[in-house]
């Protein structure tokens, strides 16, 4: 989706401001929000691609106007509704309003958390599959504008680049974010020159590398 989250190359957001002695969390609710979010992953309710899809659906004006962990709050509330974990009434009031019909799995205990998180977040696949490209190949990224979630930013579409690495096989986020079929694809690191991406005024030696799924690419 060509959403506001896809902001590589946009102007006028101002300077980058580095906060001195920045704490890990600025407010207590951020700490709570972070822990709730991470705790839901090992239980297998949702994957990261689904979370990203939901965050990307936040309307542009709201996306720009909400703090980072507010987007996570929104995403978790939406996931809880989508997956029938909570009702809207329960989310709004923080109190249980039903005992049946909800899709709740046992909580993952602390001692199993790390193991379960690793397993449930797994998206690298051990599979023999012939790669369509190899390092050194010149490719052109597809001129694609899907209405669904995707991980190829707009600035890197329909551009000529060089494959620098085959990172192995991963599940395609475009379908995984939508509860769709698991599609394993090679993911390549592709180098684009800054001039290819941003025009002849860009410094001649500079470049940007992205990790792109095979179906985002075609031979030149």
């Amino acid at each position: 989706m060509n959403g506001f989250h896809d902001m590589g190359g946009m102007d006028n957001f101002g300077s980058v401001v580095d906060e001195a002695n920045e704490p890990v969390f600025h407010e207590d609710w951020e700490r709570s929000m972070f822990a709730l979010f991470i705790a839901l992953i090992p239980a297998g309710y949702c994957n990261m691609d689904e979370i990203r899809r939901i965050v990307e659906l936040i309307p542009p004006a709201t996306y720009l106007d909400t703090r980072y962990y507010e987007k996570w709050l929104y995403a978790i509330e939406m996931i809880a509704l989508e997956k029938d974990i909570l009702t809207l009434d329960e989310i709004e009031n923080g109190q249980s309003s039903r005992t049946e019909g909800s899709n709740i799995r046992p909580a993952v205990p602390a001692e199993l958390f790390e193991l379960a998180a690793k397993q449930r977040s797994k998206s690298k696949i051990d599979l023999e599959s012939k790669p369509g490209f190899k390092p050194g190949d010149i490719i052109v990224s597809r001129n694609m504008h899907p209405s669904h979630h995707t991980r190829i930013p707009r600035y890197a579409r329909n551009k000529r680049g060089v494959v620098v690495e085959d990172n192995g096989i991963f599940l395609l986020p475009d379908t995984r974010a939508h509860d769709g079929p698991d599609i394993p694809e090679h993911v390549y690191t592709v180098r684009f020159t800054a001039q290819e991406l941003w025009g002849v005024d860009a410094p001649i030696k500079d470049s940007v590398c992205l990790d792109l799924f095979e179906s985002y690419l075609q031979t030149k």
Partner: protein
Amino acid sequence: MINSKHSKPLSDVQLRVKALESILLEKGVVDQNTLDTIVDIYENRVGPHLGAKVVARAWTNPEFKNRLLSNGAATIAELGMGSILDVQLVVKENTPTVHNMIVCTLCSCYPWSVLGLPPNWYKSFPYRSRAVSDPRGVLMDFGLALPTDTEVCVWDSTANMRYMVLPLRPEGSENLSEDELAALVTRNAMIGTAVVSVS
């Protein structure tokens, strides 16, 4: 987990998080011990001090550095570090002619296993928007002016690889121990928005 020392009214967001936490605990969707464990990991156990240790080891042990650059995830595991989520650490080495810089333009992907959670600026719109199109301008925001003949390579984390920069070892650090070297390495240097110097 709302702090009782705050006497001002809770904001809407605070109330919503509190409601969500209450109901998820009540229904047994999440476990309080697990929440505490997660906070402990990311607030106390992982952070840039881990990445700094990896960098100092790479500066002092060429064999370790070679393995780190060819397989970041397996090599940090030797030091007892690793990602909780299934992502792959990739380390990019700065050289006298190449300067690397990490960004996630689409969201906020970051090498948690070695740097902890990202600072706000890394997740901010100014950084996400300009790091790919004007990296040298962004570096100027950090007070870093690179020579025009340096090659700037930006790594946009669009899939499962999580990048970290291995900064250049600074001049004048030849006689320092591994621990002393680690103390010089900053978080920003491992993202690529700073260089390491002997202060």
